[in-house]
Structures are given as structure tokens and as C-alpha cells.
């Protein structure tokens, strides 16, 4: 029982740490639902290494046009977490977990992404 409590506490702390990285984004709480997580497998349509935040466009249906636009952190911050400007590319099939946009907006802020070759990257 005690170990179960520890696991729950550890999980909560881990979740807070993940949320902390998401909260690095300006205005995150006013445009994303930080209480929700969505995980989908999708095809990358664009990957823009830019300020203020790196952008990933995806198509859950395997298309070539962006149906859902996701943001990451700023380039130096996510570089420190293992991302590079070539971590993904259009056409890659990835599994991505993100906080979805509020009010049904087709946007999200990435929490983690598993690349086509199985590498897990946290935002």
C-alpha cells in the first residue's frame, strides 16, 4: 500500500514536471486545456525550427496538409531536451502526446513525441 502511495506521489511529481515544461510557453493556460492529454499517431506535415516556439504540423489521416498545429518550446530549451532541427521531417509517422487547444481549436502544445524510429523526446 505504502509503495502504491509512493508511486502515485512520484507520478504526480513527474506529471507536474511535464506540466512545468508546457507552462514555459507564453499564454499556455489561456489557449490550451492543460488538464487534458491527447495521444495520437499521425504523419508530420511540417516541422519549423523557429521562435518563439518550434512548430509541428501533423495529419492524423496520413495526409500532406496540416490538420493540427502543435507547438514545442523555444529552440534552445528543447535542444537541451534532445531535440534538433532534424528530429522529425514531413512524412514521418510519429506518436505525439499533447495538451489540446481550448474551445476545439486545432492546436496543441506537445508534451512528448515518439519518432518514427522509436526515440522518445520530451518537450
Amino acid at each position: 500500500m505504502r509503495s502504491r502511495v509512493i508511486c502515485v506521489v512520484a507520478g504526480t511529481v513527474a506529471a507536474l514536471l511535464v506540466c512545468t515544461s508546457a507552462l514555459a510557453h507564453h499564454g499556455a493556460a489561456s489557449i490550451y486545456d492543460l488538464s487534458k492529454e491527447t495521444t495520437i499517431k499521425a504523419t508530420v506535415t511540417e516541422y519549423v525550427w523557429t521562435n518563439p516556439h518550434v512548430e509541428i504540423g501533423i495529419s492524423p489521416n496520413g495526409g500532406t496538409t496540416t490538420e493540427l498545429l502543435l507547438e514545442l518550446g523555444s529552440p534552445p530549451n528543447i535542444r537541451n531536451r534532445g531535440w534538433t532541427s532534424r528530429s522529425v521531417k514531413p512524412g514521418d509517422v510519429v506518436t505525439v502526446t499533447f495538451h489540446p487547444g481550448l474551445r476545439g481549436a486545432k492546436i496543441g502544445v506537445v508534451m512528448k513525441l515518439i519518432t518514427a524510429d522509436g526515440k522518445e523526446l520530451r518537450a
Partner: protein
Amino acid sequence: MIRHLVTFSTAAALVAAAACSKPAAAPPAPAHPNLSGSWVRPLGDREVGGLPPVNEIPLTPWAAAKFKAERPAAGENQDFANTTDPSLRYADPNGYPRISLHPMRFKLIQTDDYVYQLWEYNQNWRQIALNVPPDPDPALTWYGNAVGKWEGDTLVVDSVGYKDSTWLDARGLPHTQDLHLVERIHRMGENLAFDVTFEDPGAFTKPWTAHLIFKPAPDGSMTENIYTISDELRFRERFLQQKAAIPIRR
């Protein structure tokens, strides 16, 4: 040829003998602690301190009203879409000390005459002139006019001349152009501590202090990370469907 070799060998032997008979002097101890290196306040790290809660800062009525009217992009009263944050609305430089609160590293370079802080965020920097009197009539700038001197192991930095259009932090804490900062910078174990005293009669009814801790960051090349108004407007266009009022680079 042989004569030259003999002469050279003799000279080399004399040098070696001199070196053996008199131990080399140890290099002089540095006059001050070395604060150089790369430093960061990691996001979410509770040990790194920060500015106090706003209700613990002695705001003047003017400052309290200005703070209440601001719409920051983070914190309790956040309104990202309609923010009044000058660093987002105009992509203005953060100013000081706000830029040091940003979770990106800075590099500190220490020389005998100056200490430089080079922030990775937006490639902004400030200089602290050592052992010179303060400028009696400093121009108002984003990062102020700073002079410093050593008091034992602590670098004491006195700065004025700050433009009043910046926020002291991302919450929207205001100041006037009479802002006067006194910073005591010192090593704290492997970390670097900044004890900052804020004086500004127009914004604060009395001086107050913040304690900032910076942790060692991976050194090496700094990344170019320049953020422009086009970047912000393009982001808003894509993520918020806000139409840009001016032409933007795409």
C-alpha cells in the same frame, strides 16, 4: 655545425640546472572569486528563488494600479491574446532583471575591468564596469548603467538608468525610470547567488530584496535565439488566428 650543437646543449643544460635549483613560483592566487561560466535558473526548480509574491512587494498606489491594469501572458491574470506585455506585444527587450528570470542560460565573463552577462535569450547583454564612479547622468537604456566593485568575495553592482517601459518580471511588475538596483553577487557552493535590492520611490514605498540562485549550466557555444516581432505575429496568426496589423516576414 658541431660548435652550434655544443653551444645549444650547454645552454639547455644551464637552463635545466637553474630550473632544478630554484622551484618555479606558484601562480598568484586570483584576487577575486571566479564567477565566470554558464548559469541558469531551471524552470520549475524550487531552489532558484525569484521575485516575491506581489502582495509582499510594497507597491505605491501608482504601481498597484498599473500592475492591476496590465494583462500578462502568464500568471493569475493572464490574457495571452490581448496581452499588454511589452516583450510580446512589441517584442521589446526584456530589460533587467526580467531577462535573468527567463529560463535560458547566460554566460558570465569576468575581466579585470568589466563583468559581462551574455544572455542566450535574444542575444542581449549588459556590462558592469568595475572600480569606476557611477555615471552622474546616464542615458535611459533597456539594461541600465551598472558599475561594480569587489567587497571581499562579493561583487557589489550598483545600477540606474533603466527605461520605464519594461516590466520587472513576466507578471507585469512596474517600475519608473528612477529604479535603482543594488546587487550582491557571490558564490554559494557550486551555484551563483544574486541578492538584489530594489529601490524606486515612485513604484515602491520602501526598498525590498529578491534572492536569485543560478545553477551551473552546460558551457560551450551559445545558440542564436533571436526573437522578432514577425516571429510573434506569425505565431499569433497561426495559433490564435489573429490577423497581423503590419507586414510580417514569413
